[in-house]
């Protein structure tokens, strides 16, 4: 049986890689990709959590939560990508640092 | 109900004046005048039973007492009451309202309706402050009188009026909030100690709270009133507010708004926190004395006429502070008298400065000079009020300052010697004022069409002269009026002072 701490380590490192991706990359697409990574890390934990839940009967809450996160990811990506298209149409580049008109 | 009528007349009058502007331009003035005059009617009953049968104080300190409930849950009552002290100050307010009206008669031309609304609402706020017995109601009126005054300064003021108005607003608002805090703390502590949640002054008076928390609450109240009575550390809003305010606003500001600070100390700080104010007394008297000297020294170097008069009122108010915390009957009577006399003499000076500015369009002392040869009547009044402000015996200021110094000499002789030096400094800046504006050679342009005082100005100034002389030569009725409300403050503690 896989000790939970390993899974913790795995999801945690996946999450950190995702964060690095968000912070380091200046291309909007890559930010979305690393966002996906972070989502996967979280889902991993949910599933592991429900699997190791100390109750007598089998617990499937993790998987239900997975379904919800799945729909979330899907809708989020749909909107994200349409924004990317929109941005590309308007600015012809995807560099996020150039989008700072909201400041003044 | 008479007190509520007295309160609502200016409020409604203000609204009417504002509304009437649509019909024609100078209707608001007349409405304002009418509403001010009929403010005197509710006062008629207490006034004549004081003059004719003077047993009005036999039964209780309050001439008129009208408790009504307002917010029952917190036991906040719309409780108005008038005693000798508040009657005096209300009469002063109404008088100064008329003076402000007369000085604004020709001077204010744009948006007159809104001007008279603000003027009358400030007066209503001040009358409310002098009548309110319920602490919460007192705070409400404290704010009511502040906002219209802000508009008066910021709309009809002179060159950098916005700076002055905002500064005035922030200072007084900060003071007001501090007062609200200490007010709630007071009610809270009172509730803990006696289990009775009330904002009513008379009930709070029965069992004054003590202990170090009482000290901090007393300090909160005192600082709020020190900001309003411009004592030294918090005085810097006054010169700006006065220089930028139109004449009518600075008359109201000088004559009445400063007195709410003094009134607050006498009415709320001294009786509600007896032992805390004993601890506070030495430092407050020190602030008063420093205020006297500092205000006088500042007045001495000013080149702007209105700033000079403003700093002089900082110095005079230092005397009031000295008188309030000296805890004996002479000093307290002197403080009340100083508030009256200062109200009249300084507002007269402001009316004069307004007239000079109206004619010569400048307040700069270096540009003014030799007015006596051009405007003898105006300069004669200027000389009279300049002399009054330096405390010439036979006029109100002298009686007040003499009593204050006499009272504080009994408690702190060494401190009073410095305060007495204030008399010399007052002479210095008053003589400077008179010399720089009225005597010497004419510097300004020689257009001869500048007219001397017209009858309206002449009547207002002359009536103020007679009041000051009456105050100086026959102050006894004023002393008897405030005697009852001041005697219970003068528990002369044996321990303080040499």
């Amino acid at each position, binding site marked *: 049986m896989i000790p939970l701490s390993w899974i913790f380590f795995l999801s945690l490192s996946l999450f950190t890689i995702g*964060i690095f991706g*968000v*912070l380091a990359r*200046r291309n909007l697409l890559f930010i979305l990709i690393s966002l996906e990574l972070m989502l996967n890390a979280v889902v991993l934990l949910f599933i592991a959590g429900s699997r190791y839940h100390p109750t007598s009967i089998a617990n499937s809450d993790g998987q239900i939560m997975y379904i919800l996160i799945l729909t979330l990811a899907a809708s989020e990506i749909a909107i994200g990508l349409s924004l990317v298209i929109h941005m590309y149409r308007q600015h012809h580049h995807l560099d*996020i*640092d150039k*989008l*700072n*008109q*909201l*400041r*003044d | 109900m008479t007190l509520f009528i007295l309160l609502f007349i200016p409020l409604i009058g203000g609204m009417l004046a504002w509304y009437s502007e649509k019909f024609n331009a100078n209707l608001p003035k007349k409405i304002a005048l009418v509403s001010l005059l009929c403010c005197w009617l509710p006062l008629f009953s207490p006034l004549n039973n004081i003059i004719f049968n003077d047993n009005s104080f036999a039964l209780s300190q309050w001439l008129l007492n009208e408790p009504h409930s307002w917010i029952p849950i917190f036991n906040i009552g719309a409780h108005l009451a008038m005693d000798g002290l508040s009657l005096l100050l209300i009469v002063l307010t109404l008088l100064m309202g008329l003076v402000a009206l007369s000085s604004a008669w020709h001077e204010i031309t744009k948006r007159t309706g809104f001007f008279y609304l603000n003027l009358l609402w400030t007066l209503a706020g001040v009358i409310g402050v002098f009548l309110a017995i319920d602490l919460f109601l007192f705070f409400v009126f404290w704010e009511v009188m502040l906002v219209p005054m802000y508009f008066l300064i910021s709309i009809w003021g002179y060159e950098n009026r916005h700076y002055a108005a905002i500064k005035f607003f922030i200072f007084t608002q900060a003071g007001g909030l501090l007062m609200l805090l200490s007010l709630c703390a007071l009610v809270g502590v009172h509730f803990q100690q006696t289990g009775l949640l009330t904002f009513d002054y008379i009930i709070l008076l029965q069992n004054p709270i003590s202990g170090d928390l009482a000290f901090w609450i007393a300090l909160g109240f005192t600082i709020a009133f020190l900001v309003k009575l411009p004592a*030294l*550390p918090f*005085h*810097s809003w006054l*010169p700006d507010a006065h220089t930028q305010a139109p004449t009518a606003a600075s008359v109201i500001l000088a004559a009445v708004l400063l007195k709410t600070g003094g009134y607050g100390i006498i009415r709320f700080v001294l009786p509600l926190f007896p032992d805390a104010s004993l601890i506070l007394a030495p430092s407050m008297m020190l602030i008063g004395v420093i205020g006297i000297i500092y205000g006088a*020294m*500042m007045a*001495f*170097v000013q080149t702007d006429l209105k700033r000079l008069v403003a700093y002089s009122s900082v110095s005079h108010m230092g005397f009031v502070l000295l008188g309030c915390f000296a805890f004996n*009957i*002479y000093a307290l*009577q002197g403080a009340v008298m100083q508030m009256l006399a200062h109200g009249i003499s300084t507002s007269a000076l402001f009316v004069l400065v307004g007239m000079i500015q109206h004619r010569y369009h400048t307040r700069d002392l270096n540009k003014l000079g*030799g007015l006596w*040869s051009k405007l003898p009547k105006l300069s004669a009044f200027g000389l009279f009020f300049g*002399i009054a402000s330096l405390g*010439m*015996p*036979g006029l109100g200021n*002298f*009686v007040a300052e*003499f*009593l204050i*110094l*006499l009272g504080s*000499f*009994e408690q702190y*002789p060494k401190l*009073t*010697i410095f305060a*007495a*030096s204030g*008399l*010399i400094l007052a*002479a*210095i800046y008053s*003589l*400077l004022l008179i*010399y720089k504006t*009225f*005597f*010497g*050679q004419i510097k300004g342009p020689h257009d001869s069409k500048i007219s001397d005082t017209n009858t309206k100005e002449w009547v207002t100034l002359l009536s103020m002269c007679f009041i000051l002389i009456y105050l100086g*030569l*026959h*102050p*006894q009725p004023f*002393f008897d009026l405030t*005697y009852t409300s001041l005697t219970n403050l003068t528990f002369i503690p044996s321990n303080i002072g040499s």
Partner: protein
Amino acid sequence: MTYYASLLSLIPLLPLFSALILLFSKPNKLTTALLAVGSISGAACISLFLNFVFWQQTDFVLTSNLGNWIKIAQLHINFSLYLDALSLVMITIITGVGALIHLYSIGFMYQDKDFKRYFTYLNLFVSAMLFLVLADNLLLLYLGWEGVGLCSYLLIGFWYQDRDNNLAANKAFLMTRIGDTAMALGLFLLFIELGTLNIQDLQVQALSVWSSSNNNMANLCCLLLLGGALGKSAQFPLQNWLPDAMAGPTPVSALIHAATMVTAGIYLIARNSQLFQMAPDVMYLIAFIGTITLLLGASAAMVQSDLKRILAYSTISQLGYMFLALGVGAGASAVFHLMTHAFFKALLFLSAGALIYSLHHEHNIFKMGGLLKKLPIVATSFAIGCAALASLPFTSGFFSKELILEQLIDSGHTNFWWAAVLGAFITAFYSARLFFVVFLGDSKQSPDKQPEKIMSLVLLLLCFFSLFGGIQPSGIQTLMPKLNASGLTTLQHWLPIVLPFIAISLAWWMFKTNLFGKTITVPALQYFHQLLKSGWAFDRIYQVIFVSPFKFLCQLNKSDIIDLHYRALEKISKLLHKKFSQFQNGKLRCYNASLIIFCVLAFAWFIKGALMS
């Protein structure tokens, strides 16, 4: 008796009413003059009448109450007047000399366009002085005291167009105001110690409360009251306002700065004599200040070139004599000298006024000369005045000064006696110098017009008084021991009589060798001459010690240090705003980074928390 009381209350009120009428109405010159002089001469007649009534009685008291002023707790003050021998003398002087000076100033001020304003102030002054002298309690005295100061300020600065007059007026008012504040403190102390401000009760209370003489509270009170007296009577520390006060019209200088106002200080001390008896040290101080002022005034008068400044310094020195007399306890002789001095000094000032009037505002004595023939009346009055000033025998000045000198010896202060005699010598010298330089010698200027008839009439009247002013009402006699020359040695008796003649001959010799007008070459002597001319450089001393530091301090603080703090507060908040707005730079990555930073910090805090426990 009540008839007299109402008469008494009329004395101060008459000038007051006439002043008020003049203030509010606009009469022509004639009615103004009539009203003004009428009211003063009315008061003069009443006081003369009271003199006759009380001529024989020795100790009489007349009081009248005009109404209640202040009544709180123990402080009972009312407008009540109190007349006894001392104040009777004072009101006779004030109203007598006042009436004459009013009469004189009709002529003197006739051309001036502010005729009405002049007489209003003059009437106000006389009524304030009368209130001062007749006051029953110290507060009413203080009211008169300040009123007198105010009117002297207004009258010195009467010709307000000229800048120096205003400065002189301000200086006079401020110097006296310093004295008045000291006196006010004295009043407070007296009220707290003795519980009353009524003058007669004070004397009685002082005896009972301060049993042992010379306790420090008595000293302190008398010292403070003395402060007021010094300010008003231009004595040692506060005397340099009087020479500048000559900027006003000459009748004003005659009335205020010779006869009446400057004597207020002496009246105050004489009135509270029992109080001052309780403080011998203060009495000695008064005598000491008297001598210093005496010598200071006389020496300064020796070298002046301005006609009126000489008379001003001589007034200071004569007042020094009176203070000296008060200091050694001879109150009556001081008052007697005050009376005679009022007459002959008023005479001197008025004749000086006539001189200036006819020489068209010429003040410098070295530009006048040989006027004996051209202005006979002025010359004779000047001669009599100078004689009385130098106390030549059989003039009124002689009687009063001799009396003071004799009192000095009686009370054993021989060192003061020597100083007084030296003063007398210098006085005789400068009065002789004044007379010779102005009236003898070659004439440099000829007068363009003779003085008005009314002015000459007044001069003659005053000549009469200054010659025969020696006679006094019986009331004063009782206060004053007879002129018995018992205790004096021959030298002490004859020296003061011979001395003026020596001084006059010295002055005559110097005039003949015209040493007076010559410019002095010796630097040391020149420096000393300059020192004396500026009244021992008191103006410069006070300028350096008090005025310029005060001005510097005020200028330093012109923009209100406390206000700067509030403005600095405003600047700081603006600065912070600028700093923090840099964080809102619109870059998403910065916002993400700050988010992550916060998580890192939160975890660190959590770890620290867990590790600590």
